[in-house]
C-alpha cells in the first residue's frame, strides 16, 4: 500500500529539460518510477530520456493521464508552474523548488484549498516508496521496503535517518519530506493521519526542526489519535534565537518555535525523541 506514491504513480516532470530536472528524471527512471512525460514551455514535441515533452501541463495530462507531477522550476516561475498543475487537477503535486517568495506561496496555498490537488513541499526532497516509486531527489539506494513511515521537514537529514534505518534492518513504507518553508502544502498532521490509516505502516519517524508550530500540532494529533509508535528528532537545539538557519522557516521568533518546547510537547505525547539521529533505529525497537 504505502502512501501517496507507488507503482501506479504516473509522473509528469515540470522542468524536465533543465539541469536539475533532467538529472533527477534520469535518476527517477533508473529507480523504476513511471515517468510518463515532461513539461517545458517552448519545447513541446521534443523528447528527452525517451519521454515526450509538452508545452503545457494541460496537454501533457490529456496525452499521458498523469496522476502526479513534480516541479523542478526556478523559484521565480515556480508559482506559475504550481497554479498550472492545480488547474490541470493533478491529484498529487510535489514541488522541489527552494526559495519561492512567501507571498507567492500564500496565494498558492489559498488556491489549493478549493482544488482537487494535494501539494507536497515546496523546498522539499519529495517522496520515496521503496522499490515502487521515487518522486523527488532522495538517493534511492539508501531505502528499502518495510513498515516504518518517515516524515520530515528536511532533505539531507531525512536521508541520514532513512539510511540509519536501512542499516539497522528497518525498511520503510514511504519516506516523505514535507519541506522547510514557512508555508507548505502538506503538514506533519496530514501525513501522520495517512500513516495511521495505512495498513503497511507500523511505526513512524518524525523529523522536525526549530520554527513554527507544526511539531506542536503534530504532538497534539499524536496524543489524541495515533495508535502507532512514533520516534522523532528535532534539529536546531544549538541554534540562536532570531536567526534564520538556512530553511526559510527555521527561525525562533519571540521565544517561540524552539527545539526545547517541541521536544517537550512530543515527549509529553509519548514520542521517543533521539539526541542523535543515528539513535532512531534503537528507539523503534
Amino acid at each position, binding site marked *: 500500500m504505502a502512501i501517496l506514491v507507488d507503482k501506479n504513480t504516473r509522473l509528469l516532470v515540470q522542468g524536465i529539460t533543465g539541469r536539475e530536472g533532467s538529472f533527477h528524471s534520469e535518476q527517477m527512471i533508473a529507480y523504476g518510477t513511471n515517468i510518463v512525460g515532461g513539461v517545458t514551455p517552448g519545447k513541446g514535441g521534443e523528447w528527452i530520456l525517451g519521454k515526450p515533452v509538452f508545452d503545457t501541463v494541460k496537454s501533457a495530462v490529456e496525452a499521458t493521464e498523469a496522476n502526479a507531477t513534480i516541479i523542478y522550476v526556478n523559484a521565480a516561475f515556480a508559482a506559475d508552474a504550481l497554479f498550472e498543475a492545480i488547474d490541470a487537477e493533478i491529484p498529487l503535486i510535489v514541488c522541489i523548488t527552494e526559495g519561492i517568495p512567501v507571498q507567492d506561496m500564500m496565494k498558492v496555498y489559498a488556491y489549493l484549498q478549493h482544488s482537487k490537488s494535494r501539494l507536497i513541499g515546496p523546498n522539499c526532497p519529495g517522496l520515496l516508496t521503496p522499490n515502487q516509486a521515487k518522486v523527488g531527489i532522495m538517493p534511492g539506494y539508501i531505502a528499502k521496503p518495510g513498515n516504518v513511515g518517515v516524515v520530515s521537514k528536511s532533505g539531507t537529514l531525512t536521508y541520514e535517518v532513512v539510511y540509519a534505518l536501512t542499516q539497522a534492518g528497518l525498511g520503510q513504507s514511504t519516506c516523505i519530506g514535507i519541506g522547510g518553508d514557512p508555508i507548505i502544502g502538506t503538514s506533519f498532521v496530514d501525513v501522520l493521519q495517512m500513516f495511521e490509516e495505512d495498513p503497511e505502516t507500523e511505526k513512524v519517524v518524525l523529523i522536525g526542526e526549530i520554527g513554527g508550530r507544526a511539531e506542536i500540532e503534530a504532538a497534539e494529533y499524536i496524543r489524541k489519535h495515533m495508535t502507532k509508535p512514533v520516534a522523532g528528532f528535532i*534539529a536546531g537545539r544549538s541554534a540562536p534565537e532570531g536567526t534564520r538557519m*538556512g530553511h526559510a522557516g*527555521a527561525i525562533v521568533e519571540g521565544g517561540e518555535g524552539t527545539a526545547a518546547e517541541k521536544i517537550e510537547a512530543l515527549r509529553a505525547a509519548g514520542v521517543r525523541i533521539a539526541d542523535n539521529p543515528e539513535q532512531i533505529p534503537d528507539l523503534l525497537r
Partner: protein
Amino acid sequence: MNLHEYQSKMRFAKFGIPVPMGRVATTPQEAYEIARELGGTVVVKAQVLVGGRGKAGGVKLAHSPEEAEQIANQILGMEIKGLIVRRVLIDPAANIAGEIYLGVTNDRAAGKPVIMASSEGGVEIEQVAREKPEAIVREHIDPFLGLRDYQARNLASGINLPREHWKAFSRIATALYNCYTASDATLAEINPLVITAEGQLIALDGKMVIDDNALFRQPELAEMRDVEAEAKETIQARAAGLSYVKLDGQIGCMVNGAGLAMTTMDMTKLYGGDDVGPANFLDIGGGAQADKVATALRIILSDPNVKSVLFNIFGGITRCDEVARGILQALSEVPTTVPMVIRLNGTNAKEGREIIENARIPNLHSAETLTEAAQKAVAAAKGAL
C-alpha cells in the same frame, strides 16, 4: 532582510501612510541643520537593526538645534547590542494623545496574511501576546481578496478606537497591507500608531522585514540592505549563494542541507559539552559546485576561533564527487594545518571518498557515521586527534 526605521517609514509614506517629516543625519552637524529646519522639539533616534533602542539611550528629545547636535554626537558611534550607530533619524516630536499597534505579517499556521491591531501601542507585540493577549485583535486576509474595509472596521472597533478615527485608521490599514504585499514583506509594523492631540493618526515608528527569497524582484529594496551592519563573512557568503551564520564555537561546520547543518551543529555541542561547540551554521545548498565549496571553506577558516572543520555531506542533489573536488581545490588555494574531518555519503559517495583518499593530505581525517565524525571533530578541536 530588515529595514531600518527611517527606510520603513519612507516606504510607508510612499503608500500614503502619514509619517513624521523627519530626515536622517550621519553627523551632528547634519542633525543640527535638520532640527533647525524642522523647528520646535525634535526626537533623535538611533537607526540600528535591534529592538530596545530607547532603553539603551538611543532615543532622546531635543528642544533646540544645539541640543539635537549634542545628542546626535552622543548617539552616533554608540554601540547598541553589538551594533554601532551610524545614522540618527531626526523627527519632529509628536503631541501624543494615544498609542496603538498595527501590523501585518504571515501567519504560518493559517498559510495567509494576518493583520493585527492592539490598544497597547509602543509595547512589543510579542510581549502583549504573552501578558495581555485579549488586547490583540486579528483578521486573516485572503490574498486574492486583499484587506476589506469591514475587516479594518473590525480591528478599529475591536480595540475600542473612537469612531471619529475609523476612517483614517481604515485608510492606514489598507495602505499598510498594500505596502506589505507590494514590498514582499514578511512583516510591516507601525508601533506606535499615534493619535495626536490634534486628532491625527501618524506612524511614529515603523519596522519592515523583507522576504529574502523575493529580493530578486525587489531591486529597490535590495539596495537598502545595510551592509555596514553585517560581518564581512556574511556578505561574502551571500554573494556566493551560501547560507551562513557565525556562531561562537570552535568547530567549523560545512554541511549540505539546512536540517543536517543544524543537526551537525547540535552534534558538536552534544559531544563537545560546555567547552566545544559549533563555530557556524553553513549550508552549501543543493547542486554545490567546487568553487562554491572553496568559498565556503575560506569563509570558515577566516574565523580565528576555528580549531577544526567538520564536513558532513549526505548526497541527494549535491554529488559527493563534486564536493570532494571542491574540498581539494579549496585546500590547494587556502593552505591550512587546521585538522579536518570529512564524511561523505549518498550520491556518488564512493567516487568522492576515492578522490579524497587519493589526495593523501595529512590533516584530513575521514569518518563514516555522523557520531564518529562529530566525535573526531571535537577531539581535533581539543588538540587530541
